[in-house]
């Protein structure tokens, strides 16, 4: 992810038609309860490679839980979650997490400095050209270079949000879980972030958001989580 990070750059065109694309994520008859409360009821959904899917629904209806099912942070009471054709279980989940970049509205980036966090991410050996990409990405998302030495807690909500996005992109993954990531951003940055992700055809993006900036794009499919059906 060193080159080609600009929002205006041309992406490679995916030669496959949607029908030909492989299924990246599949939810098969998922039921999820917390104590006596049913959070997800009979969810079946397939997300193909390169799909840009917005999950819509009321707050607290279980949209975000759906993402954590794939990450293995919760397991369904019934049904099965598949990632790249393999069931998500205690053995496969560690590889699944290495394939997905997750960002949420209130990502807890940790107690140290931005530099500490970037060094930690670097230590995970996920991107050999981390330093170069960091500068470019920070510039792209309008983060000042000086914040590197700052404590993460000193950053504003919007800065933390964009830093989370920078790190997610640095991870060099092609599946993105974007959970209300534009909530703390102004209109101009919302547009910039949405364009950045939506323009990359090979990236699979599962977006939980109420923000119209995502759904305005014709490439985006909207899944109504409460009705369990595609809106468009």
């Amino acid at each position: 992810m060193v080159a080609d990070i600009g929002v205006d750059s041309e992406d490679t065109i995916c030669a496959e038609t949607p029908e030909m694309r492989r299924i990246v994520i599949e939810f098969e008859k998922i039921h999820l309860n917390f104590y006596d409360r049913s959070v997800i009821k009979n969810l079946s959904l397939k997300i193909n490679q390169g799909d840009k899917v917005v999950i819509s629904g009321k707050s607290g209806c279980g949209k975000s839980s759906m993402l954590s099912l794939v990450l293995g942070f919760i397991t369904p009471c019934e049904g099965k979650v598949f990632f790249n054709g393999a069931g998500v279980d205690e053995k496969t989940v560690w590889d699944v997490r290495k394939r997905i970049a997750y960002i949420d509205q209130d990502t807890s980036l940790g107690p140290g400095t931005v530099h500490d966090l970037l060094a930690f991410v670097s230590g995970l050996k996920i991107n050999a050209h981390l330093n170069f990409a960091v500068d470019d990405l920070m510039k792209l998302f309008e983060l000042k270079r000086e914040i590197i030495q700052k404590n993460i807690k000193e950053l504003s909500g919007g800065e933390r949000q964009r830093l989370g996005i920078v790190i997610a992109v640095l991870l060099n993954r092609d599946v993105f879980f974007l959970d209300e990531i534009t909530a703390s951003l102004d209109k101009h940055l919302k547009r910039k972030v949405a364009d950045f992700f939506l323009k990359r055809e090979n990236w699979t993006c599962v977006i939980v958001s109420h923000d119209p900036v995502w759904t305005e794009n014709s490439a985006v499919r909207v899944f109504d989580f409460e009705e369990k059906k595609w809106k468009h």
Partner: protein
Amino acid sequence: METLDIPVISLSVAFLLLIIPVAISFRYGLKLVTPLFVSVVRMSVQLALIGVFLKYLFIWNNPFVNIAWLTIMIVVAVFASVRSSSIKISRIFIPAFISFFVATASVVFYLNTFVIPLDNIFDARYLIVLGGMLLGNSLRGNIVGISTFYRQLKIDSNHYLYVLSLGASHQEALLPYFRESVQLALRPTLASMATMGIVTLPGMMTGVILGGASPEVAIKYQILIMIAIVVSTITSVVLTILFTMRVCIDRFGVLRADVFRSGKQVSDNWLLKGWRSLVIQSGIRKR
């Protein structure tokens, strides 16, 4: 040099000193009178009983009885250290017991075999006394270590899960909490060692001198016991955290809610906060 015995009447005079903390408690409304009374009574009764028990233990000096008594001491230490954390004792008793036993027994037998050295490494005067000394310190270290580790992990669960979501192994994600807990657990012991002889005259040294030994002998024993304490404390804290992690953290790397005494209530609160909180509850479901 003979140790001067203290008549029981004279010992009771020592209790008069307790008027001072009682007065302070009343003056400032500290509400410490009841806990102070309970602690003093428990301490006195326990020591009186153990005095009688040790007398016979030393007379019998049977290896099996000595090991059995050391085991009982470890069981009590495990209960005391786990009780201070929010984890259910039933879930981590065995891993914590193994940690304490390995840390204490290995150091005591090393001292008895190679340092002192004894013909009978199960000798009650050494096995029980040294074991008790080490266990007392391991207990203090583990109270801090276990509590800090799991409390920080719960408080910081959002960040922990974020690190897991980056693709970190659970060892990588847990390492900062592990480091902090072990460092905190060791800090009192290290501070005590650093000021020993200047600020503090430790209990064992005082006891050995009062028991009639020369200060030179007392100092040798004190150095030996301090090294043993730091080794057994760090070993027991590290092993307890490592062993209990296998029970408290599931195979997905997520902290199990059902190992905590207040797990349900806490999880209910988390439930209201969103998915990051929901995930903590994975432990309540069947895998």
